[in-house]
């Protein structure tokens, strides 16, 4: 497929995704919707931390910054995987357009990439709003000192980490798409399972060292752990943090995930075509 055709497909998919995701509400309601859930999620973990710390008598602002950044940037994992898991079900059973997309010369794969990029855009909006409101509530509203120097963020490291991390989440999303093309029963639970496991073992809101040893092994194998470490480093500049090794781990685990995701998706599409699943409409 020519590069121009790929870019056109991706562009159209981003546009379709934007329309599907946003035109159910006016822009203000849409913005509130994309703000409220992540902010509420951040407030939940923030209050757990503050209440737990108040009871134990130990308040560590460094740990608060750890969970603040981890929970906020985890938005990318949740939104990209949620979107990609529901995509096949919605386009096949609800809007009944998957068969038409499959028939067009543009590749379904690039269409999915475009839709996922739309999810990344929406997640970025959520992220910025959540960061702003989180700082306003916790730092200025409740007086919790968040030890982040907002003027010294390392945007180079942050961009690199985000780029590789997003590719990784999209690769996991392809696995979810592949599973959903073969079954109509698990589209709601899959992203919950995957994001739940990543949330628990990925060092999102607590240090992975708190986990039992077997949990720490899982944590060390997950790309999201390295993604969040790199993102945190770009904000907190912790002394002794080996950025290059973590970036290498993130890149290697992302490449492996990407290969696995694309291979799984291709096999799933082959089976779907063979078994007549591409236009199979089921109501679950």
């Amino acid at each position, binding site marked *: 497929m020519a590069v121009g055709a790929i870019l056109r497909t991706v562009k159209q998919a981003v546009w379709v995704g934007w329309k599907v995701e946003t035109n*159910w*509400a006016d822009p203000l309601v849409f913005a509130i*919707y994309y703000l*409220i*859930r*992540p902010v*509420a*999620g951040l*407030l*939940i*973990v923030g*209050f*757990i*931390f*503050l*209440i*737990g*710390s*108040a*009871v*134990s008598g*130990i308040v*560590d602002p460094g*740990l608060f910054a750890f*969970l603040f950044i981890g929970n906020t940037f985890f938005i990318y994992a949740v939104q990209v995987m949620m979107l990609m898991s529901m995509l096949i079900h919605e386009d096949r059973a*609800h*809007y009944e357009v998957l068969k038409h997309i499959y028939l067009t010369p543009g590749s379904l794969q690039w269409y999915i990439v475009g839709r996922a990029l739309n999810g990344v855009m929406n997640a970025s909006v959520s992220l910025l709003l959540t960061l702003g409101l989180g700082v306003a509530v916790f730092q200025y*509203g*409740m007086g919790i000192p968040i030890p982040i120097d907002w003027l010294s963020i390392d945007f180079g490291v942050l961009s690199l980490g985000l780029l590789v991390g997003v590719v990784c989440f999209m690769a996991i999303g392809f696995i979810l798409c592949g599973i959903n093309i073969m079954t109509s*029963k*698990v589209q709601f*639970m899959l992203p*919950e*399972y995957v994001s*739940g*496991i990543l*949330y*628990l073992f990925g060092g*999102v*809101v*607590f*240090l992975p060292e*708190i*986990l039992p040893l077997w949990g720490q092994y899982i944590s060390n194998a997950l790309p999201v752990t390295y993604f969040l470490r790199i993102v945190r480093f770009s904000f907190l500049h912790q002394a002794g943090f080996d950025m290059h090794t973590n970036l290498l781990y993130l890149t290697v685990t992302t490449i492996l995930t990407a290969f696995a995701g694309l291979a799984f998706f291709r096999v799933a599409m082959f089976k779907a075509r063979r078994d007549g699943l591409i236009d199979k409409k089921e*109501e679950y």
Partner: protein
Amino acid sequence: MNREELIHNLKAVYARLWVRIKGGNREPEWLAAEVVIPVITLSAYVFLYKMVKAPPEYAGFVIIGGTMMAFWSNVLWNMSAQFYWEKETGNLEVYLVAPISRMAILLGMALGGFVNTALRATAVFVAGILIFQVPIALYEPLTALLIFFLTIGALYALGMMFASLFMLYGREAWHTANLLQEPIQFLSGTYYPTTSQVVPQTIQLLSSLIPLTFGLDGIRRVAILGQGIGDVWLNIVALVIFVLVLLPLARFALGFMENLGKKEGRLTLRWQ
């Protein structure tokens, strides 16, 4: 309502209950997901409490919150949003032309949903208690059960009220149901006590508008902190008021929204 109508409606309740129980338990993977996913989520919050060295009863607070959240999710997705799904699949019009009360259908859904969710919630509770070795100090189980059932009554009455709103919704239904998850978990103190001094008064005030807040607080105090009915009677009064207010409101809202839907021609409109 005469005797014959009552029997008709009771049959409708039973029929909807049967479908809900049968449908909810026919897929083992759904059953597993509805137990495993909440346990994963609440585990993360328990570890967060462990990181800040909070006492073990806070893990108990999280587990009770996660257990009750199963009921809230059921109310949200299988009560409130149900009429939206029914509209999308073409069943809503069948309900509306049937010679039965809409409340009978909703009651059947609520009872069936309660049975299904109770199974899953019990599994989540037991798993959480066993995995994290949470100390239980339950001296008045009847008080705990009373608070639990009042909370369930208030939640399902709220779900019935929302169902009328969702009946007219298109894609907003999905987004609205999503929107009522984390914010309600935050406000109701699903994973922490809202009575803590750390929680600002404005948030405590907003929390008191949600029946789940009183239910969670009451159950935690009775089951984890070992308190009795003398300590939680205010929670019980608040929950009774919620039930008495929400049920008639749900009935009114259902009639109002159905009429509005008929006037605007939106009851059978799909893919909005």
